[in-house]
């Protein structure tokens, strides 16, 4: 009895020891000019399920290490209460900067205010928190509006002379998606004003930015509009869900899909011709930019309220030339 | 002399705080029925659990067919040819008889269970036992006697050489017991050794060849049955001489107390009417399934009745739940103490408290001091053997459990007490004490309804006897002293 008691305890401790990285071990190549305790960046992202955020986190860690920062990356799991606790723990740890993609831009306010009160600079990435009463050092995001415009261009290009009916797979809760759709519709409207090949947005359906919901939404819009010609999905999972619906309905030739993001799975689909094109984001650049902003802030430089990273349109030709897709 | 089938030597087993076995020895020859006797708590069940591999002995040896073996798990003991049929059967209620028999030893062909072959073998087994059992229904739908036969068939299926039966007759009618004995005689002929545990001494005289008596975890006697008398056995078990199994009492029966009129519930209870008088023990008897327990449960509000009036001292009672019955001063000591009478995982004090909390609490707060004192009084007056008030109810012997249940109701000052099989699974010494308590209660002017399947108990304790059959009262014997077993049986099967 005693023995197994001990064994279990030993396992527990071993388990924790294995996971807990003592704080000062990492970052051997600390620049000499660093004085005092190690500088740490605390990062809490919306979720790590989505490779987009994973890439951001990984790049912050890598870039931070180059400049002598330790980085803690945690996932808020879309649960704002959990994220709040993570930020509180960062404050207790006295990290030198907090990077955040808020799970809810309203509910996160109190805890950002706590960080402000503790004198720790807060940087937001991808999802902004432009609320009164909070101090954000800077917001780093993709230029979603510009990206949406690119998507509109791609749609015009894809439908060509004929024009036709188009459905949008939306995710209205996300501000970034609102911007994407805004850019998209503006370009389409401008096109319709000048061209005879009219493109008509016949449906805006909720997709939650997820495959299963995208699939259902696309299926429904195909039922309502059998002559549908294009689908603009606000991210890759929704686009891939829509593609599955097209395959089931045997309409892959008739309907063209424009996605967004440029995740590996999306890029692969573009290469295979399943998605026509994506305005792609650059999460790696975002990660690097964040660390740069943290350093500039610490050096006392002025930072703009928002730093936008432009997207670029990614078509089949780009995919075929992409070394990552081998 | 042949090698004994089973030889247990100097078995020692202790549990935290209790030395259950202090070096018990036992031997069993092929084709022999050995009766294992002893009061509850004497160590019989523990010894059998050691034999069945459910407990590991701290010391001592077990030899089967002269070969010493160690039983670590029930599987080990089964492999050695030992089958233990516990009082609470070891059947999976949702599986059929056939599935239960071959549970753990499925007849397979190419990895698949061969149902046809299993059914054929099961049918063979039941034919050998001379019974017919529906192989298609789940075991929970079978009667107690049928379930027991399934257990025996299970033992035969893996060719057990040693079969232990722990209180096999407790829930059987006398007719069913007769058939069980026929089966045991048949097993003997096949050289199977049977260890038979029972409190019913009559049965021991009918079936056993030899008797081993345990008391307080030690052997106190082992003799062939022919050298034993009934009083011998009782003396050995309780360690003192018992003059009479049933204590005498002076009866002073008063006016009618509880009147039940036209009680009905489906086909289980059909128009039952009776009265119980002050200072009277009324026995309700009949075969198992006659509707006796059902009747008192309706009376107590435990089940919903279709119709019927209940009056206490002439006043009509509105009983819709046990709570109402208790408030009116009726208490029920259920036949199944473990599942209906006690919370086994809670202390005896807490069990005692439950029906009395209304009285023992103020503004919702339990007056723990008062509760302890009151229970303490009952512990001493009822001679409940507990090391402390915090002892878990599940760790007590049957007799002591029954006394705790009794204390619950006495503290409520119940005027009418219903005892459903008051001495089932209780040893001789404790039985006598329960009888004395019942006598004392009626002497105080309380009324008792006693359900019992044991004829001697009915004849020895009751003032008046009601016999039930198929949900009806088929007869009343006004003077129980002059009744005979035959008379009752006639009414019970009418």
């Amino acid at each position, binding site marked *: 009895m005693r023995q197994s008691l001990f064994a279990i305890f030993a*396992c527990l401790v071993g388990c924790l020891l294995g996971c807990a990285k003592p704080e000062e071990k990492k970052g051997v190549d600390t620049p000499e000019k660093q004085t005092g305790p190690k500088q740490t960046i605390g990062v809490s992202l919306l979720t790590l399920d989505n490779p987009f955020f994973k890439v951001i986190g990984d790049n912050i860690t890598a870039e931070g290490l180059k400049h002598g920062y330790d980085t803690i990356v945690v996932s808020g799991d879309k649960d704002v209460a959990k994220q709040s606790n993570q930020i509180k*723990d960062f404050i207790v740890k006295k990290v030198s900067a907090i990077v955040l993609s808020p799970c809810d831009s309203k509910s996160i306010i109190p805890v950002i205010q706590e960080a402000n009160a503790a004198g720790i600079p807060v940087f937001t990435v991808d999802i902004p928190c432009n609320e009164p009463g909070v101090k954000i050092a800077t917001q780093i995001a993709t230029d979603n509006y510009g990206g949406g415009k690119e998507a509109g261009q791609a749609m015009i290009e894809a439908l060509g002379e004929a024009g036709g009916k188009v459905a949008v797979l939306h995710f209205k809760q996300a501000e970034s998606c609102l911007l994407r759709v805004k850019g998209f519709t503006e370009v389409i409207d401008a096109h319709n004003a000048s061209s005879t090949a009219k493109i008509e947005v016949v449906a805006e359906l909720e997709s939650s930015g997820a495959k299963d919901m995208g699939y259902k939404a696309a299926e429904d819009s195909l039922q309502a509009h059998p002559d549908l010609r294009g689908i603009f999905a606000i991210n890759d999972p929704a686009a891939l869900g829509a593609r599955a619906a097209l395959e089931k309905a045997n309409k892959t030739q008739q309907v063209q899909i424009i996605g967004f993001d440029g995740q590996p799975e999306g890029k692969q689909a573009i290469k295979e011709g399943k998605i026509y094109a994506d305005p792609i984001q650059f999460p790696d650049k975002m990660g690097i930019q964040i660390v740069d902003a943290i350093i500039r802030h610490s050096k006392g430089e002025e930072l703009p309220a928002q730093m936008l990273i432009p997207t670029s349109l990614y078509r089949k030709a780009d995919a075929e030339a992409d070394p990552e897709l081998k | 002399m042949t090698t004994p089938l089973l030889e247990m030597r100097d078995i020692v087993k202790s549990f935290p705080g209790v030395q259950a076995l202090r070096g018990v020895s036992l031997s069993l020859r092929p084709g022999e029925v050995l009766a294992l006797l002893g009061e509850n708590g004497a160590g019989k069940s523990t010894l059998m659990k050691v034999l069945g591999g459910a407990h590991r002995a701290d010391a001592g040896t077990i030899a089967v067919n002269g070969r010493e073996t160690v039983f670590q798990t029930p599987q080990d003991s089964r492999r050695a040819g030992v089958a233990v049929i516990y009082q609470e059967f070891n059947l999976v209620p949702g599986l059929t008889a056939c599935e239960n028999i071959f549970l753990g030893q499925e007849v397979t062909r190419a990895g698949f269970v061969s149902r046809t072959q299993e059914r054929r073998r099961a049918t063979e087994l039941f034919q050998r036992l001379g019974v017919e059992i529906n192989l298609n229904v789940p075991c929970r739908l079978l009667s107690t006697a049928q379930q027991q036969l399934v257990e025996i068939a299970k033992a035969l299926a893996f060719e057990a050489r040693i079969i232990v039966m722990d209180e096999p007759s407790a829930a059987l009618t006398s007719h069913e017991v007769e058939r069980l004995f026929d089966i045991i005689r048949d097993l003997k002929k096949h050289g199977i050794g049977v260890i038979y545990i029972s409190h019913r001494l009559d049965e021991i005289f009918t079936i056993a060849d030899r008797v081993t008596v345990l008391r307080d975890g030690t052997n106190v006697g082992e003799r062939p049955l022919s050298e034993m008398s009934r009083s011998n056995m009782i003396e050995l078990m309780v360690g003192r001489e018992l003059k009479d199994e049933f204590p005498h009492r002076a009866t002073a029966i008063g006016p009618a107390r509880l009147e039940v009129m036209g009680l009905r519930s489906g086909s289980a209870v059909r128009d039952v009417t009776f009265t119980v008088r002050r200072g009277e023990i009324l026995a309700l008897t009949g075969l198992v399934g006659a509707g006796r327990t059902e009747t008192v449960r309706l009376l107590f509000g435990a089940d919903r009745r279709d119709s019927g009036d209940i009056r206490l001292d002439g006043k009509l009672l509105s009983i819709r*739940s*046990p709570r109402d019955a208790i408030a009116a001063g009726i208490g029920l000591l259920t036949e199944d103490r473990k599942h*209906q009478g006690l919370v086994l995982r809670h202390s005896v004090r807490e069990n005692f408290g439950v029906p009395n909390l209304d009285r023992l609490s103020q503004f919702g707060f339990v007056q723990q001091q008062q509760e302890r004192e009151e229970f303490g009084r009952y512990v001493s007056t009822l001679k409940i053997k507990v090391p402390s008030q915090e002892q878990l109810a599940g760790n007590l012997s049957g007799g002591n459990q029954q006394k705790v249940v009794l204390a619950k109701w006495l503290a409520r000052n119940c005027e009418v007490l219903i005892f459903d099989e008051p001495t089932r699974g209780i040893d001789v010494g404790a039985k006598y004490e329960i009888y004395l308590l019942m006598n004392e209660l009626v002497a105080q002017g309380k009324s008792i309804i006693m359900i019992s399947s044991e004829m001697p108990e009915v004849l020895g304790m009751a003032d008046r006897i009601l016999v039930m059959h198929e949900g009806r009262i088929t007869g009343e014997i006004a003077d129980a002293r002059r009744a005979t077993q035959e008379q009752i049986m006639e009414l019970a099967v009418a």
Partner: protein
Amino acid sequence: MFLVLVLLCAFFSVATFSEQSPTGEAAAKQLASVIEQQFGSTPRVLIVAREQPGDSEFASSLEQKLVTSGAKVHAVVKGEPRDAREALVKISSSGEQLDVIACTPAAAAWLVFSDLKNDFPMLDNPQIVKPQSYRWPNFLKAANVLNIANQIAVIAIIAIGMTMVIITGGIDLSVGSLIALSAVLAGLFIRDYAGATNASAIGMTSACVAAILICGLIGAFSGAMITLFRIPPFIVTLAMMLVGSGLAYLLAKGESIYQIPDSFVWLGRGASFVNLPNAVVLMLVLYGAAQVLMSRMKLGRYIYAVGGNREAARLSGVPVRSVLMFAYIASALLAGLGGVIMASQLKSGSATYGNMYELYVIAAVVVGGTSLSGGEGEMCGTLIGALTIAVIQNGMNLTNVESYTQKVVLGLVILGAVLLDKIRHGE
């Protein structure tokens, strides 16, 4: 169980043993004497601190001490690196020079000071000094201990109701959804009926009470389904989990409700009693009350009896239905209270709150030693269980354990803790 908690605390104390940066008056005093020793009594000084209470106190106090001892303090910066740069530019351009830059430990690490020789050659290469640091576990800092208690308050409070339900032999899966529902309702009532951001204390209180009572109604509904129709609690509360969550999303229309006055955070983040957060005080009071209820009161004994053996309890005259109803209503009310606290902590209500909380609550109860088969369990155990979970989560955040690994470890530790308890009790 307590043993596991103590061991975990000890482990995390060791693992988070690290350098601490003192601020405030004491640090100022120490640094002032260092400056006097190294640079004489009349050095030219710039004081830099962050805009934060402790740092601010340090800066003001240091300035006062240095001025009285005769030093020349050029400027006191309380702010960000940018403010420090501005001050340096100003001093440099006015032709002044500096001997010392006195910083708080956090400010000393700012990169603005990393290359003074090249960036500000006119300043005559000032030295950077900061208060001496000491070593102490991050985990054991008073602020962190309160942090842990505050983080677990919601789960711990709901676990009180869950303990009762589990002791009756049931389960309540709907608590997570009721958190969301209650938070949304409270937000909605404040926004729509109590005057939004101008709501009065009475208005906010009634909104919260109303939200909690509505949750209580849902609990009563679950209890009625369970007692009257004998539907297993697992199924009833699973259904209520979906209903509650769906209602919350419907009512909030998928958005968070934030039109709430600032004073609403009093419950979740205020501390009006000796620095203890109000939520923690509330939690302790509720645990005290629940402990008394379960161990001293008739109702508590009935709850144990119903869970221990329902039929025996019924035949002993226990009002089984009412007892079960009480347990489910209490559980739902406490979940509602948890939702209000969470809304207060986050100053908004959203349907996404409380996702998966039922599992953490059940874990807290089980780690606390309550048996899922009913009839046994202690309130203190549940509190310890909740704290154990909070300590593991907080400790791993402090020791840089990555999110997914945290889940794996938490799962294993919950299992290990229960196993350890079983073995210790010799089963």
